[in-house]
């Protein structure tokens, strides 16, 4: 037995709308909306169905599962919402709700109403269909209710449709506007780096604004007075607000992710075959990275220092400065490759070579010349890859530019059985070349597919948004909306200026390194602010220690380990502190003001 909502029009008679899931809506979605004259839904559903149809035609060979998943999700959403849309449409046409009727079909429901007239049995209205199960456990009922409030507000105030259009404009529109060089790298640069970066920025700003608004305005407009007198601990109100904002972010970020994934797949089909191969092998993959083991210089520095200073009077000698100089000298030995010299790297993948057989391997290199130049200059480079004594080593001769990352394909058979790769660079130029240990050589190998990697990358972005939501709510816990928004935006700006803060901290002076050195001492401002900035930088670095967008656009793995670390650092540590401060302030706050007294 179903339950039908009965609506009555003064002139047009009665109508019955089923409560619950609509199978016709599920199967026929936009056609159902047209037949039922739910015009707005019909237009929107037709557009969405057309987009899905286009994706299906483009991707049915390469990503059928993805398209089917999107289609099923779309149908399910329509099925769940269809009857509510129909009821709203009927009411908009002047019908008034009259009550509920248990019946098997709409016709039976209307017949029942016609039979009883105005003498509807009370139980029809007073016993709405029982709910046999709920997804929300009782312990989370209050938090979910508050969360649902933020989510509903975002729909009713058209925030979700507006942000959705904005997201899609960025993801779909930006690549159309920005000119590409027709290469696979150019495509990923725009679709992932620019689009996803911009989406993150827009969502970040929206999150901060929403977090400040949803709490501060509830307090200012006094709705919080009605909520806070219910048996809900205030921390749950706070948490509910946060969860609501994150539900929005999950929806919008998920949508942006799906759009990015679909767009890049569609655009890839228009690339030349060679570029498609690059895209598949180097960019739309999750590649692990192997680097040279970190070179420990401190022991060598100490040994040299002992040797040089043995038996000498060290009074007044700045040993730390000596150590620093020695370290720089030793580093230079590793960095400089003189003309006609060779530099060797041993890169350990940490897995047996058999696991990587047949998979595309690349070395990612970057170098500089010792000749001063304002722009990247081309140089001949020679590379030998493979076991040191082998006569089947892969030899590569390329003209590459300085100060730029280059990827060179490597045969997987050059790996040693234990998964190590030996790479030699031979400097055939007449000047020394500079190889900075931190970024000059890296081995990239395929670990997984792009889809899951994108999900992991989006998760880290989601953690960032969660932190911004916590910061906004914390500010709004004690401040009015405009002040909270100002404070939160200031915090965001400080985070974005972490490079400047890092420079100040490394130079040891607010006035610039040279000024401090000339003065020869640290002034009062530095004494006060440097420790604060250093602490702030450590906190900011905990948050910005991850670069999912960069990793995605260069086809590197965002590992589960990184996701776990991001969760710990961004949510548990920094977000936890922000939440604790916000909840404490909100719990202690008086929610009524002198203005409303009588």
């Amino acid at each position: 037995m179903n339950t039908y909502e009965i609506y009555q029009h003064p002139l047009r008679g009665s109508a019955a709308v089923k409560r619950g899931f609509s199978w016709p809506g599920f199967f026929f979605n936009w056609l159902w909306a047209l037949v039922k004259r739910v015009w707005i839904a019909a237009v929107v559903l037709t557009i969405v169905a057309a987009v899905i149809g286009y994706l299906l035609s483009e991707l049915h060979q390469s990503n059928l599962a993805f398209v089917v998943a999107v289609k099923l999700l779309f149908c399910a959403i329509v099925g769940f919402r269809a009857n509510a849309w129909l009821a709203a449409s009927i009411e908009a046409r002047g019908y008034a709700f009259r009550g509920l009727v248990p019946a098997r079909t709409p016709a039976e429901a209307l017949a029942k109403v016609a039979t009883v007239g105005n003498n509807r049995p009370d139980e029809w209205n007073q016993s709405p269909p029982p709910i046999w199960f709920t997804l929300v456990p009782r312990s989370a009922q209050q938090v979910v209710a508050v969360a649902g409030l933020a989510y509903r507000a975002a729909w009713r105030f058209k925030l979700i449709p507006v942000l959705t259009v904005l997201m899609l404009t960025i993801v779909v529109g930006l690549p159309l506007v920005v000119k590409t060089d027709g290469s696979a790298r150019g495509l990923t640069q725009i679709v992932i780096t620019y689009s996803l970066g911009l989406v993150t920025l827009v969502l970040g700003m929206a999150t901060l604004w929403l977090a400040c608004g949803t709490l501060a305005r509830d307090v200012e407009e006094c709705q919080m007075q009605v909520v806070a007198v219910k048996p809900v601990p205030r921390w749950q109100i706070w948490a509910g607000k946060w969860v609501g904002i994150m539900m929005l972010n999950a929806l919008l970020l998920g949508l942006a992710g799906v759009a990015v994934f679909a767009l890049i797949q569609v655009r890839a089909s228009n690339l030349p075959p060679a570029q498609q191969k690059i895209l598949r092998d180097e960019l739309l993959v999750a590649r692990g990275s192997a680097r040279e083991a970190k070179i420990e210089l401190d022991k060598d520095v100490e040994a040299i220092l002992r040797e040089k200073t043995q038996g000498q009077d060290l009074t007044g000698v700045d040993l730390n400065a000596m150590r620093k100089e020695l370290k720089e000298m030793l580093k230079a030995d590793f960095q400089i490759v003189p003309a006609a010299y060779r530099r060797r790297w041993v890169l350990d993948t940490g897995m047996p070579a058999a696991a990587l057989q047949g998979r595309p391997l690349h070395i990612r290199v970057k170098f500089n010349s010792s000749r001063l130049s304002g722009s990247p200059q081309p140089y001949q480079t020679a590379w030998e890859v493979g076991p040191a004594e082998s006569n089947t080593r892969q030899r590569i001769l390329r003209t590459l530019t300085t100060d730029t990352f280059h990827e060179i394909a490597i045969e997987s058979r050059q790996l040693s059985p234990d998964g190590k790769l030996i790479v030699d660079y031979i400097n055939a130029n007449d000047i020394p070349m500079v190889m900075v240990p931190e970024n000059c050589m890296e081995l990239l190998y395929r670990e997984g597919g792009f889809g899951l990697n994108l999900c992991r990358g989006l998760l880290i972005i989601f953690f960032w948004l969660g932190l911004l939501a916590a910061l906004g709510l914390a500010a709004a816990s004690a401040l009015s909306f405009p002040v909270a928004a100002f404070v939160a935006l200031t915090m965001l700006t400080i985070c974005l200026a972490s490079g400047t803060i890092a420079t100040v901290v490394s130079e040891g002076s607010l006035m610039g390194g040279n000024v401090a050195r000339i003065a020869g001492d640290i002034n009062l401002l530095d004494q006060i602010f440097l420790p604060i900035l250093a602490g702030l930088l450590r906190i900011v670095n905990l948050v910005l220690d991850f670069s999912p967008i960069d990793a995605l656009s260069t086809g590197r793995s965002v590992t589960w380990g990184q996701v776990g670390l991001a969760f710990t650092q961004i949510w548990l540590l920094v977000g936890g502190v922000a939440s604790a401060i916000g909840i404490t302030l909100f719990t202690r706050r008086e929610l009524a003001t002198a203005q409303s007294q009588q």
Partner: protein
Amino acid sequence: MTALDTPQTEAPATPSTETVVAVRGLTKIFNDFWGRPKAKAVDNVDFEVRRGEVFGLLGPNGSGKSTTIKMLLGLLYPTKGHIEVFGHSPRHVKTKARLGYLPEESYLYRYLNSRETLEFFGNLFELAPNDRRNRAEQLLEMVGLNQVRSRTVGEFSKGMQRRIGLAQALINDPDLVILDEPTSGLDPIGCREVKDLILTLARRGKTIILSSHLLADVEDVCDRVVIYYGGRIHAQGTLNELLSERDTVRITSPALPRETMQKVLATIRADVAADKVTVDNPTQNLESYFLGVVAKARASEEHTSGAISGSQVAAYLRTGAEGQSSADKLLERFTAPAAQSEAPAHAVVAIAAPQEQANLKKLDSLAHAAPAAAPAAPKVAVAGAGKSVEAKADEKLSSLLGKK
């Protein structure tokens, strides 16, 4: 065992001695940004509210009523003094499960429709899904918003907002209902329904604290009142104690022949000065007249896009209170000083005492304490033409305390 552990389901015939709200030495000082005292909103207030009582808070604007209510609800924290609600601090979360609160304005979410509003608050009380939906349906029927359930609260008129506000205050079947101006913005039908509801709840042993400027409403439902001025309580007691004029007599009878009237008046004037005796015809109460007109219109099924008159009180709120109608309760209360009004109604003769009664003196003293801008205390009128004792007191209070 504390009061919190004993939900009130039995209906006491009269207010019990169990204290639901206890306020001792309550003081609230609002400070400025620098922490300096800015205003003393409530000053050393003491009162108690007992179970089953309808307790009224009266006072002009800024007298401290709402501040007191907000301290009772834990929204403001006292500067000094002590509050207990069901034996606990107002900030005790579990205690709040027994409270219902209707604020003075519609502080509801404007983007939710009425059903979503009730569902939301039902969730905050952790009501089971079926229970929540049943109660929401019943309350929507009760407050007459069933037909506009899908319109958002922001689209509602003020009266409709009061109705949905009242519904949310009752979703948990509270033991203590705090109503701030419950009839403000309501049409006369709504006012009558709210008053009936208050009396029904009181019969079920629920305790009601009511703040209102509509003194006639307060008189209709309250057992006891306190009158605030400048943050302090200036008068406190039952309505009977505060309002009855024991030295004035009213005789009501069917219309009499002219000769009989003259004889009666002559007899009376033998003992009382002529200017102290008034004769008139009682008029019908405007509220009753209005309700009659609307009842006729409803019988002819005229269409309205607004709130319709609510049906009977929601079933879960009625349990245990079926025995006595609101009219009975009203009658019972008004006839309590039985000796004063036994004659059948129609013509009324009211005779005022030569001296003012004690409670009117109290009001006059209040008036002297009022600021210069307030109207001077009206001269206590002899039994006014066609005015009941209640109406007279209402008028007096309004002019003394100012209208909101």
